[in-house]
């Protein structure tokens, strides 16, 4: 009888393992289904087309939309800010989704118009940033924030090369992990490292134009 128990035990382990393995596969499939992002890109491309034969009336607005299109640094920034807002809101699930979205827009960043030196720098930045964005897409909140710290540095370095058409604010929280920065479109402090726990901790460190 005790032999039987042993066998049953072993089989139980087998079963649990197999279940775990199949769960993992399912998770991967889920991660792949972040293609709703490409839909937005299509919309944006569409506006780019409109821009070409626009009457100049809404020129500024249209241009902005065109520049937000697929492959631009502005698209990366937009996705970064969306992710930041999810962390500010302590929304783990949303941050996961947006991490995956950001990984995609980083991956499709067009670096062809830059100098060789800038290209290799951007390539390294993207490589690193994609990894952090992917981690964010599959981590719990505290890990997401850890990765967001390095990601923020990558994005800041990217902006130093690509520039930005809107003013950005580099903000600094002295408390998180020995001092951490992030980028924001607004002067107001909304801390992505602490969220609701310490929403207004930090200050504007630099203005990036």
């Amino acid at each position: 009888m005790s032999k039987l128990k042993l066998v049953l035990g072993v089989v139980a382990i087998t079963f649990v393992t197999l279940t775990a393995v199949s769960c993992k596969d399912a998770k991967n499939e889920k991660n792949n289904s972040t293609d709703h992002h490409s839909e937005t890109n299509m919309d944006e491309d569409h506006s780019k087309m409109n821009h070409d034969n626009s009457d100049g009336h809404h020129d500024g607005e249209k241009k902005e939309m065109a520049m937000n299109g697929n492959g631009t640094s502005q698209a990366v920034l937009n996705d970064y800010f969306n992710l930041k807002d999810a962390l500010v809101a302590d929304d783990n699930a949303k941050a996961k989704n947006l991490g995956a979205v950001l990984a995609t827009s980083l991956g499709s960043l067009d670096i062809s118009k830059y100098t060789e030196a800038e290209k290799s720098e951007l390539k390294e930045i993207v490589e690193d940033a994609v990894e952090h964005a992917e981690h964010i897409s599959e981590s719990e909140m505290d890990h997401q924030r850890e990765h967001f710290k390095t990601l923020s540095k990558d994005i800041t370095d990217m902006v130093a090369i690509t520039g930005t058409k809107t003013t950005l604010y580099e903000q600094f929280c002295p408390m998180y992990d020995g001092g951490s920065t992030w980028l924001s479109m607004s002067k107001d402090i909304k801390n992505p490292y602490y969220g609701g726990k310490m929403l207004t901790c930090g200050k504007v460190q630099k203005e990036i134009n």
Partner: protein
Amino acid sequence: MKIVKIIALILVVVFVGIQFMPTERNKSDIVPPTDFMLVNDVPSDIKNKLQISCYDCHSNNTQYPWYNKVQPIAWFLEGHIKEGKAELNFNEWDSLSSRRKASKLRSIIKQIESGEMPMASYTLIHKKATFSEEETQKVVKYMENLKDSL
């Protein structure tokens, strides 16, 4: 009782059956020139610690435990090693850009400090892989210096 016996028999068959399913083995005698230990001047005690605690899952060469060929344990190990190597492979350290090295070092420090690595399921069997407080401090300090020197 009879039905229990039948179920047990089926399970035994399944258990024996899965023993024939192949697993990938993480074994290599070659240490590539990009290895962490080769490109960095690592003190021998830290070298030793990393070898014992990290290299089984974060390099191309695993020192397998005796039960490693028994399924489903072999699958379990294979999965962890694959995941570990994708995350960080010490053998390929120098192929990373400085930026990514800094990122990896940051993660290494975080993982060791928080005790998330080495994994509990690993240290359960590999008692020697556990980090004492002193070892944690030493390794973390080394990694921090390395990060600052990049």
